[in-house]
Structure formats: C-alpha cells, structure tokens
C-alpha cells in the first residue's frame, strides 16, 4: 500500500507564528514516527498553486491564530478540494470568535461567565471613562479582559481593581480591535481535549493547569518549569464527569469535528464554566493536547494518523 501524503501547515502571519512552527514540527515528527509521509510548509503565496498542482491526500493545520483557526484556510482547502483534519470553515469561525462561542453555549443552556464584547470604537464613541465605570459597577471585580479572537494568552489581563482596567484595555487592544470582558471566575483551570475517531466525541482526561504565579500568560504557557500540569486533573469523580460532559457538549454545540480543546474553569463550589474552545490547539512540547492524549494511554502520532485517515475517508 502507498502511504498517505500529509501536508502539515505551520507558521503563518499571526502573533502565534512561533508557537505554530513548534507545533508543526512536533506534528510532523509524530506523523513520521507513525509511518506517514508528511511534510511541513508555511501558508504563503505558494500554497494554493501547490495544492492545485500536486494536492496532498490530506492537510493537517497547525496554524494558530487567524487564518488557521478562523476558518479562512479551511475554506480555501474546501475550494481546492483538499481534505483536512478538524472542523469545517463555518464551525471554526464560530469557535474562533470567543463571544460567538460563548453565546452559542449560553443559548444551549451551558454555563459560561457573564461577558460583554466591546470594540475599541465603542469606547471612543461613548467615552471610555463612563463606560468602564459602568462595566465595573455592573459586572463587578475581578474581570478577565482578553482579545475576542486569538490565543496563547496574548493581550489577556486579569483586572482586580477598577484602576487596572484602562491599562488592561490598552494592552488588549494592542492585539485586536475587539475586547471580551468577562467576569473572572476563581477556580481550577482545566483543558479538556475532545477526540472523535469516528465513533462520536469523547473527552480525554482533563489537564489541570497550575501556573507558578497564578496567571497562565505567555511565559507560563511556553517556559518549561514555570507551570505545573496535572493529567488527569485532581478532581473528584463527580466533578471530572461534569467537566468531561461540558467539554463534549461544547464540542457538539459548536459543530466541531475530529479534535478540539475546550478550556473550562471549576469554581470553589465544583461548578464548571465554559471559557473557550480551540479548533487548532497547540501541540508543542508544553501544550495541553499531547498531555491529554498521553494521559489517555494513546500515542500522539497514531491519533493524528487516524484523524488523517478519517479526513481522507470524508472526501471519498
């Protein structure tokens, strides 16, 4: 038999280019170890001609941030008739925009912290001072301020006093034009990988995240030794069940496919809240999905290889 030729896309022009390149390299190695014929390349002006001239059997998207996660590249792959791993363009777009994903979960009756979505223009049009005062009065403190789109903790700030809010807004808008301001829930951060190998989505063991200084920012995510991860998370069986159920529910409600990572928080009372979903989760050496796959007793390369075969089968 001939091996499937898989194109791993990594790099891109987003703020998460470096993370993407590291994810792509790891994916490439895992696929090769699993016996697949894989190659890695950037998503640039040479990509589309290549897809049309010598289409691979499947594409695995390791691009993080815009293009890779907002559905744009998936739409292009659909235009080119090339199958790919992960959700389709429309579902990716739903998950990519955090306020949209939260609204879908809220409408489905699932818990997610209260939020407001505000573009930069609204603050300049209505007056930032009055608007920020109203936000703090109505939503209380602490708050989480983050760009409505994008990942890796870039531009995200925990706001504990009203005086911290203006600087947090400025820091957030450096990374994007729209801010998600969310009631901050104190609790245990967990990330749940949802995997569907053709028999319906299942939650892999949740990974618990304990950053050294309490904030899971860029440094805490990508510096080995700074954050402690527990896989599986140190949760009671009942809470673990609720965590898994909400993750699978989010995966379904957003119409996701194959593999996703759902970020949740467990509050002091054991209630679980949806924060966001990732359709192209990181696969670096400090990323959460590989930890979950290994905690489930699975092999990263084998899982990715199986997902590639599923993608190819979808086309056929």
């Amino acid at each position, binding site marked *: 038999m001939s091996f499937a030729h898989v194109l791993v896309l990594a*790099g891109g*022009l*987003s*703020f*998460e*280019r*470096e*993370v993407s*390149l590291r994810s792509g390299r790891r994916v490439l190695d895992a696929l090769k170890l699993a016996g697949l014929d894989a190659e890695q390349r*950037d998503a*640039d002006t040479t990509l589309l001609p290549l897809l049309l001239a010598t289409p691979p059997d499947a594409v695995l998207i390791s691009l993080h941030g815009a293009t890779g996660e907002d559905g744009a590249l998936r739409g292009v792959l659909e235009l080119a008739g090339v199958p790919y791993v992960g959700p389709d363009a429309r579902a990716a777009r739903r998950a990519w925009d955090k306020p949209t994903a939260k609204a879908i979960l809220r409408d489905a009756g699932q818990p997610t912290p209260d939020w407001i979505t505000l573009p*930069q223009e609204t*603050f*300049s049009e209505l007056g*930032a*001072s009055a608007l*920020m005062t109203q936000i703090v009065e109505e939503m209380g403190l602490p708050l989480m301020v983050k760009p409505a789109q994008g990942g*890796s903790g*870039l*531009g995200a700030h925990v706001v504990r006093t009203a005086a911290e809010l*203006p*600087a947090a*807004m*400025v*820091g957030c*808008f*450096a*990374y994007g034009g729209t801010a998600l301001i969310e009631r901050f829930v104190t609790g245990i951060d967990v990330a749940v990988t949802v995997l569907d190998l053709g028999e319906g989505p299942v939650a892999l063991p949740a990974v*618990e995240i*304990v950053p050294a200084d309490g904030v899971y*920012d*860029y*440094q805490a*995510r*990508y*510096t*080995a*030794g*700074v*954050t*402690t*991860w*527990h*896989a599986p998370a*140190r949760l009671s069986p009942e809470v673990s069940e609720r965590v898994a159920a909400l993750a699978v529910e989010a995966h379904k409600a957003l119409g996701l496919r194959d593999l996703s990572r759902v970020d949740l928080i467990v509050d002091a009372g054991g209630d679980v809240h949806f924060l966001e979903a990732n359709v192209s989760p990181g696969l670096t*050496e*400090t990323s959460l999905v590989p*930890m979950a796959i290994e905690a489930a007793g699975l092999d990263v390369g084998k899982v990715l290889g199986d997902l590639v075969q599923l993608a190819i089968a979808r086309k056929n």
Partner: protein
Amino acid sequence: MTGTTLDDYTDRYAQRVRGMTASEIRALFAVASRPEVVSLAGGSPFVSALPLDAVGEMLGELIAKQGASALQYCVGQGDPALREIICQIMALEGIDAQCGASPDDVVVTTGAQQALDLVARVFLDPGDVVLAEGPSYVGALGVFQAAQADVVHVPMDEDGLIPEALEQAIADMAKAGRRVKFLYTVPTYHNPGGVTLPESRRERIIEICAEAGLLILEDNPYGLLGFDAEPLPALRSRVREGIIYLGTFSKTFAAGVRVGWILAPHAVRDKLVMASEAQILCPSMLAQSAVTAYFTTMPWREQLKKFQGVYAERRDAVLTALDDFMPTGATWTRPAGGFYVWLTLPDGLDSKAMVPRAIANRVAYVPGNGFFADGTGRQHLRLSYCFPPPERIREGVRRLAGTIEEEQALRATFGVSS
C-alpha cells in the same frame, strides 16, 4: 499523583539563567521573518552587496590550495597572517605601531561577541559594576548580565556619551562603595543610538577614565562605515594603555564568517588567550583563512566604498521618510554612519507595548527597553536601515508612523500613558 512542569532540571540551573523565560515579544518577532513584514528590527549587514560569485571562487581556491591548513586547528590566539591584516585594518582608524598596536597583542575571536564574553570572563566578578552608555548594545548587556555584573548607564546626547555624566557616575559609584571594572563604549556610529562621539569628547572621556583608573572597553564595529567623512580616530589610537579595543569583520566583509578580534595590553592579552582556549580551543581556521584570502586577493577597499554607498542611501531613505511621516512629538537621531536610528516616541507611548500593533501593521522594530539593563527606555525604539532596500524602508516608516498615531489615539481614549 504529582504534576509535571516538563522540566526536571529546575533545581539544578545556575542562578544566572533562572530569569530566562519565554518572551511574547521575541515570539512576535518570528512574524518579522515573513516578507509581508518590513523589518527595521534586525541589524543584518547587506551581504548581497558582495561580489558573491567572486567570493565563491575565492573560497573554492582557498580549499583547493590551502585546504590542509584551513581545515585544521590553529593557535588559540589566532592565525598570525590574519593578525597582520587586522593591524592594517585598525591603522585606517589610527591604531598603528605608533600607538603600540602589534599583531602580537591581537586575539582573534569568533565575532566581537565572543570578544565581549572573554573580556567579561577575565575582568568581571559577580556584583562588579560596568558603566555603559544608556542605551547600550543589547549583546553586550547580555554578556555583562550573564557575568552577574551590574550595568550602570551613563546618559548620552546627540554627541554621544556626556563627559560630565560619566564623571558623576564614577563619583556616585565611589560614594556607594561599588567597584567599577570598566567603561563599555561604542564611540563611533553607536548601536543603537546612531550618534558619534566628537573629537573633543574623546579626549575628555579618556582623561576622565585615566584619572579614575578606569579601563575602557572600546567596541568599534561600525567605524569604517561612515558616510559623510573620513573615519574618526579610535579612542585606542590616542593612548597605549588603559583601553581594550574590539573589532569585527562582520560589517567590512561578512557577518557569517564570525571573525572578530581584541587588541589588548600584553598582560591582558595572555589572559584573554587562555580564556579563549578554555572556551573554544581556537577560532575557526577556515573562517580566518577566508578573511585573510578576502583581504589579500579581493578589491576590499572598493567593496568598502560600495558598502558605505549602500548604507548611506538607506540612511537617507529612513531620514527622509521619518521627516515625511512621523507625527509631532517624535524625535530621532541623524546618524553619519553605521546601521541605526534611535527614535523617541511622543510622550506617553510605550514601544514595547506597541509591538503587537506594529506587527499587525506589518512593520517591526526593536523596543528601547532591550538596550537598558534596568528595563527603562520604553519611550524609545531602534530602527535598522541596513538591510531593506530604500523603498521598503520608506514603506516601513510609513507603517510605523500609522502605528504610532493609532497608539496615541488608543491611549488618549483610555487616558493611559506609559
């Protein structure tokens, strides 16, 4: 079960590396390598201006005729033939036999960066003080910090290091009971400042340091890349003792060969050689042979003029674009040579916080805080004009100006200044 930090060695690292973490700013610069982004960040010399075919032939001939020696180890101090050439090059800036320069006192290094590291190893103990211009070359700051020395910055103006400020810093350190080991300075076409120390100040700086018994570490990577005048005599050309001089072929030939040097007093030279042997055994003989071949068989003087012309045109492009596009309140230096312009942002702006917006607008620069050991300097940034062609430089400055205006509007909305 216990968790994992994915690093089993955290309790074994040396104290000096414990602060090393992933940096989102460094990660953002990964995007700068894409052609869509105009990078005014990196200081890569424009080596494409070299006659690459001829250099290729030269290298082929080198291996064919001298391969047995070029591919071998050499002495730790560096190849004697190259040390002769180094003295010829230094003579262009007044460092000659008259002031005691001799091939015997030259130590060849793997770029001037290793030279910095050797000087730090030979002179610095943890807690020592190094005086350096503020801002200062980021690569030197990294070396001094790794040696666990404290860098104390001395202010500059448009004429470089301010002598009175240097006197004050020396007095302050003496009063505080701190031991200052040397002054690190880039007097000519400063990186990142883009300024040059005039003749009068050169004399004064040497006097001040001599009076204080302070060694000077003169770093001179750009001295031969002046655009508007003959090279100024180096500090080292004026005195025989008290100065350790660093040079490099990265800008006069090719950064990729990684060949630099130190000219040091005899006693210091011996320690530097021993330190270098412990570190790298010997500098690359292949790289040294390539440099020797270049400076003995190629028209390097004409090539140097060509480099000067290329960089002068780019300097003109960046200054014209800054004049045309920058908003009120921004100021910048006007370099007479070298690779860099130092830009001061309008009040209230923060160059580090502005990086993501700049990257989103497809332009990259280096935020000013990287050039200060104490993390200040965020109102400044460094622009490199050495690598992109003039039209790209102009486009990059246009994008930067737009970025600054957007940032001003955002901060005005929220009433936030840095």
